[in-house]
């Protein structure tokens, strides 16, 4: 990787007590576009690193005086975020562990493979840069609006990146994702980070109202427009003037309503029900759906022209099962939220309970997790919530294979072609391992009876015993 043009070159401190090796490395790395400085000892490295900040340190382990590991600890004490790559002549796992324990980002074995070194430098700098960006993004989005958008997973980081990128524009955004995945939170985050943040955000659930009511709700009505319309009322679009309208469950609206929405998006004006006056509206439209709008268009159930108007920017929210790494972060957040609400000091989950949270496929996504944690807080009598406080469905451990079952094509992409019989053998052993030897549970995972599982175990010679 070479340094990006117009941006200052990343600065590297190279530490090696072999002057020849040090000169060679600094020259080589400088040639890759980095600004380099050398230090001949661990002591000099600590002094230099404390004097001025570097983006990365590349350091030998074995040096006269203090070792690379000791120097690493000293530097990390004052600058924990700096990535440090360690060079060692010992390519054992133990030396990697020692370096990692001391806080090294990675370790490289000597003699150095320069391609690997170049790649490792680029990767470490990219990783450090992403972390900084992510932190900045979180600050930008704000703690309050980040609620529910919590996540350090790659999938969630992509969503946060996307939100930050599209928020300042005026583009219409179509947010898709399963129920409970946080579509409205994303809409709120976009509004909050947009130039319209000081204006209103008006959310309408299009599936919650009958068509006639939805029309009046969105566009307003004149006095006497229908029975009970005793006075003129402004619609949601007009109420959102200068701000944002969030149309949730857009896939549920009727053909007639689709046409009216299309006109609003095209003309930027509304007409109250029972009226003739056209009213200009200055709104940004965000829409959300848990349905496949493209498929609805293909079936003729959703207008293609409206789809394209709404889908200027598409933002897909990953289901929770695809970002399981975020579960502990979300759980901790909800523990704090419901702990405060219920005046309870529940600080965490037992490892077994956390295991359940991590295993569950969460068909109801973040909303389901939030409910489960709220229940755990309410039922918990101590500082740590256990399995017994979790909803019973989380303890069944049945649906471990659900993601693959729901997306067999995606799961198959990771597997080589094999004999069906071999695939079955692998599936049987994998289920037995995942169920930790519990045959009944393994059978449920495989979608067969226990008797059938036993027959398979016999067929493949895994057992000789009768059931």
């Amino acid at each position, binding site marked *: 990787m070479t340094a990006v043009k117009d941006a200052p070159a990343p600065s590297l401190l190279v530490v090696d007590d072999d002057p020849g090796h040090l000169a060679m490395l600094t020259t080589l790395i400088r040639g890759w576009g980095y600004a380099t400085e050398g230090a001949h000892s661990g002591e000099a490295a600590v002094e230099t690193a404390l004097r001025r900040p570097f983006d990365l340190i590349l350091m030998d382990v074995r040096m006269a005086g203090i070792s690379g590991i000791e120097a690493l600890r000293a530097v990390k004490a004052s600058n924990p975020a700096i990535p440090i790559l360690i060079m060692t002549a010992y390519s054992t796992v133990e030396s990697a562990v020692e370096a990692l324990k001391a806080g090294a980002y990675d370790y490289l074995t000597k003699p150095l493979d320069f391609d690997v070194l170049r790649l490792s430098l680029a990767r470490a700098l990219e990783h450090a840069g992403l972390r900084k960006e992510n932190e900045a993004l979180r600050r930008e989005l704000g703690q309050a609006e980040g609620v529910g958008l919590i996540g350090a997973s790659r999938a969630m980081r992509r969503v946060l990146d996307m939100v930050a990128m599209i928020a300042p524009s005026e583009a219409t955004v179509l947010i898709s994702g399963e129920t409970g995945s946080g579509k409205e939170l994303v809409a709120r985050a976009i509004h909050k980070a947009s130039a319209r943040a000081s204006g209103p955000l008006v959310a309408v659930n299009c599936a919650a109202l009958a068509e006639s009511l939805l029309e009046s709700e969105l566009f307003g009505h004149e006095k006497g427009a229908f029975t009970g319309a005793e006075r003129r009322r402004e619609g949601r679009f007009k109420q959102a003037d200068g701000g944002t309208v969030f149309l949730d469950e857009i896939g549920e609206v009727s053909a007639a309503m689709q046409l009216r929405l299309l006109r609003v998006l095209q003309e930027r004006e509304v007409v109250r029900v029972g009226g003739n006056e056209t009213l200009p509206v200055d709104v940004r439209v965000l829409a959300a759906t848990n349905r496949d709008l493209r498929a609805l268009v293909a079936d003729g159930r959703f207008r293609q022209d409206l789809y394209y108007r709404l889908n200027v920017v598409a933002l897909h929210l990953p289901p929770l099962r695809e970002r399981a790494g975020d579960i502990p972060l979300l759980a901790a957040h909800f523990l704090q939220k419901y702990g405060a609400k219920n005046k309870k000091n529940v600080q965490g989950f037992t490892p077994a309970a956390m295991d359940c949270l991590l295993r569950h496929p969460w068909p109801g996504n973040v909303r389901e997790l939030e409910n489960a944690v709220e229940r755990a807080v309410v039922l918990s009598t101590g500082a740590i919530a256990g399995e017994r406080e979790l909803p019973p469905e989380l303890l069944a451990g049945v649906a471990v294979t659900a993601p693959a079952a729901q997306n067999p094509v995606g799961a198959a992409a990771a597997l080589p072609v094999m004999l069906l019989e071999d695939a079955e053998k692998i599936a049987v052993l994998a289920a037995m391992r995942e169920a*930790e030897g519990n045959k009944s549970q393994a059978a449920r995972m495989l979608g067969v009876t226990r008797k059938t599982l036993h027959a398979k175990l016999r067929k493949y010679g895994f057992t000789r015993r009768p059931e």
Partner: protein
Amino acid sequence: MDNPAVSLDQAAALKRLDGDVDIYRVLAGVFLEDAPVQMDKLGEAIGSGDVQCAMGIAHTLKSGARTVGAMLLGELCAELECGLATGGQSPAGDVFARLLAEYRQIARLLETEIGC
């Protein structure tokens, strides 16, 4: 672990398998074949900061360990998985070191004493 009988609870594993020694031997064989590869991959994933990959491997190792009755190894895998999920890469090295030591002991026990 000083006491191998504690770290490898074969009786508990066999109980879950309804006392089926045949299946236990098959699953222990699979574990012995697969675990060294997974341990190498786990070390690489931790070293390179690939937290998601490391979590996936720790999860698989955890199930394999518990299946053969290596309960402490399973707990260490669970600790690593949770630690990676909550704290990312930084605390992983310490748990991995303990996990590695425990794994070596279990592998030796399975290979020699159990005869897998």
